[in-house]
């Protein structure tokens, strides 16, 4: 069954079962491998993308549930104001180690800052605790979100 989805502003038509998770459409059908597979059960957040600006787990999101919503992935998040600031903060603070989970971390953090430019520590906990980092970069993730929030306050 052909399904058309809008990924990073571009309409893409794929021929897969309607219950195929968005993650595999992105990675294996469209070749957009920045979005990662971690668990397949929405437990780790590695597969996080935005649907209409909201962070969702693409590993449990059937392709036929997406409709005409705008999907944004790590490959394009830098084009958003929040995403660009998060990416810069991630580099400034040297957050990344193995890096495998960081696509998902950045997507969750970007969604947080886009909707809440000045998150409290508990806001950060709530938004980020669904994203596992096995390298344990949590100290710097928190610092980087705070840095990005400061720059958000100064420049929008």
């Amino acid at each position, binding site marked *: 069954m052909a399904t058309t989805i809008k990924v990073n502003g571009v309409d893409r038509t794929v021929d*897969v*079962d309607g*219950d*195929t*998770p968005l*993650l*595999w*459409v992105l*990675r*294996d*059908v469209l*070749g*957009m*491998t*920045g*979005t*990662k*597979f*971690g*668990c*397949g*059960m929405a*437990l*780790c957040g*590695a597969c996080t993308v935005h649907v209409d600006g909201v962070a969702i787990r693409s590993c449990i999101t059937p392709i036929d549930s997406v409709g005409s919503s705008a999907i944004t*992935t*790590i*490959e394009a*998040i*830098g084009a958003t104001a929040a995403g660009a600031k998060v*990416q810069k903060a*991630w*580099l400034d603070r*040297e957050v*990344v*180690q*193995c*890096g*495998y*989970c*960081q*696509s998902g971390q950045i997507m969750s953090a970007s969604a947080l800052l886009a909707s809440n430019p000045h998150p409290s520590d508990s806001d*950060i*906990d*709530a938004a*980020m*605790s*669904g*994203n*596992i*980092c*096995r*390298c*344990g*970069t*949590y*100290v*710097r*993730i*928190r610092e980087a979100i705070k840095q990005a929030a400061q720059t958000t306050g100064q420049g929008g």
Partner: protein
Amino acid sequence: MSLDSLSSQAVCAEQSAEANILSRRTFLKAGAAGGGGLLLSLSLPFAKGDAAAADADGFVPNAFIRIEGNGQIVLTMPYVEMGQGTYTAIPMLIAEELEVDLIQVRLEHAPPNERLYGNPLLGGVQATGNSNAVRASWQPLREAGATARTMLISAAARRWNVDPASCRTQSGEVLHAPTGKRFKYGELAADAARIPVPNNVALKRPQDFKLIGTPAKRLDTAGKVNGTAVYGIDVRPPGVKIATLAQSPVFGGRVKSVDDAVAKAVKGVRQIVRLDDAVAVVADHMGAAKKGLAALKIEWDDGPHARLDVPAIAAQLDKATLNPGAVAQNIGDVGSAMARAVTKVEAIYQVPFLAHATMEPMNCTVHVRNDGCEVWVGSQALARAQAAAAKVTGLPLDKVVVHNHLIGGGFGRRLESDGVARAVEIAKHVDGPVKVVWTREEDIQHDMYRPYWFDRISAGLDANGMPVAWNNRFAGSSIIARYLPPAFNNGLDPDSTEGAIDLVYALPNLHVEYVRVEPPGIPTAFWRSVGPSHNVFVTESFIDELAATAKQDPVAYRRALLDKTPRAKAVLDLAAEKAGWGQPLARGFGRGVSLQFVFATYMAQIAEVEVSRDGAVRVHRVVCAVDCGIPVNPDTIRAQIQSAVMFGITAALHGEITLKDGRVEQSNFHDYQILRLNEAPAVEVHIVESREAPGGMGEAGTSCIVPAVTNAIFAATGKRLRKLPIDPAQLKAG
């Protein structure tokens, strides 16, 4: 710096490297690289002692600097990047002495070739592990850089007809100050390649370091924040199919029957591959492969381990510690000292099997052709991966091309090549390239696990409560005996005992024995902080028990035993000062300390822990003092300690793999939990200034944190935990 050609360069690098296996008697020798450049191969006086090394060279090349005629400076990395920062620290060592800026260098993964890239601290295996990349590289890679720089200066001085001593180097150029002349390194590469290799080049004094000791920015991160970094799981050779698999849920079991009718009908499923002990579904994408896998009806013959459980293994280890083992260390006379002791303390400690649970699930992409095999993988041990593929295909090594990739978490898991072998077994049945991706469930249930360890330990105290006898006997699996058999001698290996012997404390009578036991039905492997992951837990918990028995402060008690190990005393003092040791804490809180010397690094940690009335444990703050010798990249050291602390707390609070009817019971992150951001403590790292040679940093923080946490729980509750993971039920108030 660029990483753009990482995988594609591997074959070329191998060819140029092979072409430059040079003199048997020189450490360093120049050769002309393709395009008229300077290629400096580095040899180590390392006798590997196997047939591969014995054929030609007594001295085997190990790493490379390549300066091309176009000015490109290429460093071939013998160690793999898995988040630990080796792709920054290793270039820093070379660049410091070569006098180039990090931004000027390009990095390549080394190809599989143990003769060239064997790790001298891992018995010549081409592997990244045991926190020793910087340790192994510290002297030879700085010498490589200095030798190259000396030759480039000589080439310039000849062209200018001046004294080499009047030249200096800076940022990839040779400068002649009196005349203001300068050459870029690339312009000198062809000439430098013809200059005899100097002996005994002088290395910089530590006070002259410009790069080493500075918090250099990581070289591998840009592509990791925008989705462009390519891990093994991301490769997409043209026409690649995606496969996922079910392996016998009991180790050693076999496939009895497969009904694949429904699976074959799933849209996108192309093929079912049946092996002796596994079934794979090959499909257009992972979604179809997983759906097909779920539709398979597989009957298994569980084989000999069908009833295995962990209590049976623990009982086997318990029994083994009742008989003598191999003596790992003996000081004085424990027997008579124990007999004279005023107080005797005895304890049994146990730690569980643990999975690695790397965020990137196991995967490997393979294309088997009649005349060759191509493998794409992220491996900590590339030559092992190549050998595994050669064995399964029956092809000679030189027909197996392995492309290494960034690693989405290693922690020891990707030192093993079981996944490569499995993927090649499947790929032999597939026409064209196939990417085999483990589901998280398969990844956790078919890991190779940190061993279960059982420790029986006792001590005798004198009238002042100080230890006069220390007797420790422990049993568990030896990874070294399987992975590197020549390093297992007389019942001992250097990993299983690290952290249990050569303690920082002055113990006049000490006796430590190791009993190797290989439990059936569950494979074991290296796991971040390896032997010390259990030995430091036991040792640092037990010394804490002795302090409590003696009714002494845990820091003061340890400190009294450190007169002969001043670096250990210094990190303990620093951690205690920074943590506010002795300051009052709220009810329900406790501070715990641990101290270790493992991976050639001294470390002390103090954990501040809260235990709720329901027994829940929360680690709020960790203070770490570390003396790892010269800190090559201080920011990476901080990052590694922050990381290792989270890894250790994960194990202490949550980590346990159990077996029921021979099957691993845990399957995904709901029942094999990883510490999350809302549970993460603040971590403070204090680095001691040092000019000693560097120690390892990737793992030390993991072994150190675990007893700091359990000792803090003791301080908060009076309850001593001798078995991991921490059981909140034991900590409930009342």
